[in-house]
């Protein structure tokens, strides 16, 4: 029985971690969100409008299916949760391998690798230990001039050079995926503990009660006083600017003051006050309409966004490039040559060009060092 459970678990895990599952889930998200933009949604539509848009039977069906409030329905949120699970599973499934690749890079290419790797090139060297050393020095100089930081790798009695750029690129995808999870996590925090409401104040009035949806209210730990509010118009009469001078009052003391306008809210201990509009009511003068929001998760969201930007930049614009240089003695002829191999995890054409540049510059470095080697002794392909 326990074995069965384990196999079920393993199967579920496999399914969750597979790309196919992820793709199917994303397609579902796409379809359902599209439906949510086509069917009128209750939270942003007045009941009258709903009734005039759909016949009672249709409305009944839509309501029962949850299609009139897709984005807050349990199945949509459940779907997003499944997507997150899928990302987590896929990452856990693949990360260890990738991590090994990242943390202990392949530094010394063995014979099989040398035979198969592309691109590669071999340059002829002068025989003997001196020739070997000259080849390595030339390669080191060329690599340094191309901005690499070459290191000598010693394996038993073999010696070679390894150099690389942008190893982080191997982990970039995981950075993007974890940033997505971070964003989801932030929105969950806000969904659980965040709220939005409105607060209307006459000039001179103060209050700490915010009206949220469905006639409920929330009490702030401090009061907000509106000292002044106003509207400025363009010449054609359309509003140009709404402003309010607000003060945060704690225990009878003004602790913070700010003139807010649209796009520039007042922030006080985790609560934000936005200028929504300004109106006049005859005798009292102006009154200001404020939106109040409390989003404890937003900084998690923003850090996710920044992380995603970094991750995507790594994914698309950082190429993990590796270069190996090994002096090799041909077992049949006994001739010594310098095997140079390279590899890149993306943009292989661009890399091939760079690789050829590098080989050319190693050749250049070699020339003054080894005059004995005749020019044009380059051999292509297998060594």
């Amino acid at each position: 029985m326990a074995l069965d459970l384990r196999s079920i678990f393993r199967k579920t895990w496999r399914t969750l971690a597979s790309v196919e599952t992820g793709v199917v889930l994303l397609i579902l998200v796409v379809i359902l969100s599209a439906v949510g933009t086509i069917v009128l949604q209750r939270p942003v539509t007045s009941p009258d409008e709903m009734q005039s848009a759909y016949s009672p039977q249709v409305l009944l069906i839509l309501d029962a299916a949850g299609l009139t409030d897709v984005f807050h329905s349990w199945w949509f949120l459940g779907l997003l949760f499944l997507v997150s699970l899928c990302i987590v599973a896929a990452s856990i499934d693949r990360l260890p391998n990738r991590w090994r690749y990242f943390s202990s890079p392949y530094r010394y290419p063995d014979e099989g690798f040398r035979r198969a790797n592309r691109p590669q090139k071999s340059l002829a060297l002068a025989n003997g230990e001196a020739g070997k050393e000259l080849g390595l020095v030339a390669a080191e100089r060329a690599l340094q001039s191309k901005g690499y930081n070459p290191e000598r790798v010693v394996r038993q009695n073999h010696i070679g050079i390894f150099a690389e750029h942008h190893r982080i690129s191997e982990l970039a995808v995981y950075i993007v995926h974890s940033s997505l999870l971070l964003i989801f996590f932030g929105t969950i925090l806000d969904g659980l503990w965040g709220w939005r409401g409105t607060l209307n104040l006459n000039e001179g009035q103060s209050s700490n009660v915010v009206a949220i949806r469905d006639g409920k209210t929330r009490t702030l730990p401090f009061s907000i006083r509106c000292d002044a509010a106003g509207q400025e118009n363009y010449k054609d009469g359309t509003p140009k600017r709404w402003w309010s001078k607000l003060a945060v009052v704690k225990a009878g003391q003004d602790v913070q003051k700010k003139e807010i306008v649209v796009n520039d809210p007042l922030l006080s201990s985790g609560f934000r006050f936005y200028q929504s509009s300004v109106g006049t009511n005859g005798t009292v003068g102006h009154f200001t309409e404020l939106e109040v929001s409390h989003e404890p998760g937003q900084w998690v969201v923003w850090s996710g966004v920044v992380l995603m930007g970094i991750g995507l930049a790594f994914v698309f614009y950082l190429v993990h490039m590796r270069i190996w240089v090994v002096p090799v003695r041909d077992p049949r002829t006994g001739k010594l040559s310098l095997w140079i191999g390279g590899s890149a995890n993306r943009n292989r054409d661009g890399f091939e060009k760079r690789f050829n540049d590098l080989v050319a510059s190693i050749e250049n470095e070699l020339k003054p060092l080894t005059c004995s080697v005749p020019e044009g002794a380059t051999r292509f392909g297998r060594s």
Partner: protein
Amino acid sequence: MARAKQEQRQPADGMTLIVLVGLAIAFLLYIAFLNVVKTGNLLSETNLLFATLIFYSGAGALYLGFGVTGTESYVKFASLATWLGLIANTAAVAHRWVDAGHPPFANVYEMLLSFVWALAVLTLIAEKKYGVKVIGTITMPVAIVGVVLMQLLRTDVHPLVPLLQSTWLDVHVTLAILAYAACTLSFAFAMMFLIQDNVKTETFLVLSSASTLAIYASVVLTCFGRWGGLSLAAWSQNRAAEIFLSQAIRLSITIPELGWLMTVALLLVATPLAYYGLAHRKNNLKFLALANRSVFVSILLQSLTLVVLLLGARNGRSPLDSSGGSSSATAAASPFMLAGLVAGVFISLLFLLLVWRRPDLERLLPTSDKLDRITYKTISVAFPLLTVTIATGAYWANQTWGSYWSWDPKETWAAITWLVYALYLHMRITVGWRGRRAAYFAIAGFAVVIFTFFGVTYLLRGLHAFA
């Protein structure tokens, strides 16, 4: 519109085409001249935009001319015309910028102006950097549809409402425009890939006929009125929106007889598909030739329909004329629908181009492998741009409404676009989709982009009301 149309009528041989194109451009210049005389101002925005239209149309016509005659030097001249168009377009953007006192990003008209500009720039870059000389065959028609659309949208300069007075507006919209233009370019590359990858010409027949059929079917199904008229939602040019008599009741205007014409056009657009079906059933290539010929006939009728619609829209009858009175300010066709019809003509034309000059096109294009990689490269630029567009939009929304995500239709569709391209990347990188399937994906992605750009604005309502 009608002026721009003239030159795309496909004659059967090259000489007629060149004469027609010459006449059309002369006509455009004549109109432009009249306009200059009337306003006495050579460098007004309208004229600059008109010059843009002339040059882009010239470029489009030259690409098509290459398609008909196979004269390669046309492609060079097309590139030159694109350059000239870009100069006029840049001047129009600058004019608008100075006039409005803010970058041209604040409404659909201004966004289109910038979008067309970005598209022309990317086209020229693609020509130079990747050597895809005929890429304009696809991007220029898109640009022309954009400029034509602009002629119908509200163009007056409005001061920025408080909401839009933010640096984030500029950042957000610049990124969005670049992302959309990059998506358009990837679409063009994907199409070129399909051509170079020896996708059967019949497949393109099905693709192009199905998309024009979809356009005409949706028009006929939603607008066919009583007694064969075409009943259209009245469009106010002043407000650049449909006219509502009361909540959810649109003012509609009927253009008599156009319904029948539209239905005939629909049938003709459907005939290539029918012939294609027959060709497959009977295994007879003769029907394919007939299918190609019927595409040609359908273009003529499509153009005719378009002209009748444009003429009719000016004096369409409204059942509520007496009470409304506002109908003087209406054109009874939304830019959205017009753009659809113009796009239909272009899609059919591009198909004919393919039928006639496929070997020449293939000769001028890079290898399919390279095109596949360029498509991917373009998307790998577009995707981060889309991401940052959404992120800056969210940040701005948070500054303004106190909430970074409210499932508004525009937001949701931006997210859908993002997801579609994310799917493309996963299929390509992880599953290893290359070539055709990836190209079809890129084309689908572009369709979603267009819907996000225009469809959402005109078909779905939401907070993002300005564009």
